């Protein structure tokens, strides 16, 4: 496998991972927290209406988890394609 091919494959794998993460980002931040807030509010999570909880708590926790998930998967990809630093 040439250096160029390897770089192209690494980039493709990165973009696939990115699209997955952004899909989750959009689903939680926009679909659950904004579009479906009305119906979800009829379900309760402890004392929170569920839609309200996603908008003011759940979405923020999801964003944090997503970044660490992406960072750790990228560290693995870096090694797998041998493009990691030092």
């Amino acid at each position, binding site marked *: 496998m040439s250096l160029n091919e390897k770089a192209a494959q690494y980039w493709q794998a990165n973009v696939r991972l990115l699209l997955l993460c952004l899909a989750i980002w959009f689903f939680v931040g926009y679909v659950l927290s*904004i579009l479906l807030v009305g119906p979800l509010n009829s379900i309760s999570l402890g004392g929170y209406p569920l839609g*309200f909880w996603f908008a003011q708590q759940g979405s*923020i926790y999801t964003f944090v988890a997503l970044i660490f998930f992406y960072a750790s998967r990228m560290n693995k990809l870096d090694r797998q394609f041998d493009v990691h630093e030092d």
Partner: protein
Amino acid sequence: MDLQTITYLVVGATFAVYIGIAFWARARTTGDFYIAGGGVHPIANGMATGADWMSAASFISMAGLIAFMGYDASVYLMGWTGGYVLLAMLLAPYLRKFGKFTVPEFIGDRYYSQTARIVAVICLIVASITYVIGQMKGIGVAFGRFLEVPYDVGLYIGMGIVFFYAVLGGMKGITYTQIAQYVVLIFAYTIPAIFISLQLTGNPLPQLGLGSTMADGSGMHMLDKLNGTLTDLGFADYTSQKGSTLNIALLTMSLMIGTAGLPHVIVRFFTVPKVRDARASAGWALVFIAILYTTAPAVGAMARLNLTNTIQVAEVGSPEGNLVYEERPSWFKNWEKTGLLKFEDKNGDGRIQYYDDKNKDFAAKAEAYGWKGNEMVKVDRDIMVLANPEIANLPNWVIALVAAGGLAAALSTAAGLLLAISSAISHDLLKGVFVKDINEKNELMASRIAMGGAIAVAGYLGLNPPGFAAQVVALAFGLAAASLFPALMMGIFNKKMNRHGAVAGMLVGLVSTLVYIFVYKGWFFIPDTNNLPNNAANWVFGIQPEAFGAVGAILNFATAYVVSKVTAAPPEHIQHLVEDIRVPRGAGTATGH
């Protein structure tokens, strides 16, 4: 000890720490000055980014907005955190690999064009300076209120302190000072929240308290109680959506893209040693931000409940249901003195009625109670966080701590913005375009002079505030979203994007967003020059001016794509450059050459 003395002690002690750190970490090279020598640990960098990011708006205003808007204020919570996901995945690691000092430098090199670099400098300066005016105003107000000095004296003190440590320390001093400021501001925010959550729900964690049952033995959930209390007084339900879905979604998107496009945040990721660290650092930054942002909804909801219950002491409509004005608590009197809280006895009964007199369905009930309109004629949203500990009867040292926290938030953000402005002037305009052979010592001097100049301009505008702080903050986000973010992202993700496309895109995004804002808010914010009244009925598809940044960004992407298709592809070496920044290996320390 009285409140005044404790406030002096706490604020004075925190400032002594900041100045001590600035002196210890003073910058000796341009690398130290612009990017802290490139050796900041990702967790430390995340903490500094958190302080840099959370301004007076996050600390003082946001919980107040949530208290009065309920669910609809979620746009700020999600908008100002979700942007870090975009930053971590779409920009930070690649810009770190590119390894230069400033955002315009990347745009200039990637699009092989001085024009693109200058356009980026203009976008950066307009966005940052408008943002910094708001911080200067916050500093003046906070000093004025707590040290009981006039607003302008408070502003001069703040300018002097920012000048001292930002100019002396550069990024190195700012980074280490911001870590201390983060610690101060997060304690100042969470300690009162923990106390209040314990009082109301018995749960020490505000994030859980907000979803718990009341500690008053009623067994009701805190949010149900709040919804009930508010709707009994004709106010809107707290937890349901009130605004239009499209507008809420676009405003959230504008704030997210703006967050990822603001240069003073992006430049933070140039200070870490490795590409890997840039990804993790964005995550740590968001952890430190999330501690405040997940506490804010509890602070807002509990402040609203406490405020309403302070005034509505018993059953709604009963003769003894409302607080007698002469028996109002001392925090009420203190804030009345500032003019930010106002009472007017409309029905002359000597008691305070606080309800929604614009709700037509509630009007008949209010009439039957003998109420003649809402008597809390002014409740400024910005006082909620500062007044919160007093409303809940917390000890004086907590109130003093909140003052120190508000100042830490405003000062840290002002310093980061000023650094972004000064590096754009000294590094991008002087060294990059006009005086290419400037030596390092002179460049360092020029950036310090530029920073001094920026402080003077921001201070002057803060002394004579044009009266549009809230609008300009929204403008800063809209501008960054519509101009810089698309150019940066396409520079990494689209190898074929060329200079014509990027420049055309930035200009279309910038101008369309500016025009949409000016049509509703007045040209250059001059009152009465707006073409259409600024209300929902006149907005295109119900999109408010603050939310237009997302549309501007889409126009930017579309224009750039079309223009790049019909003009010459970028040269071979630029396409290789893009391939190179996509791969982590080989990242050196950032340089300015």
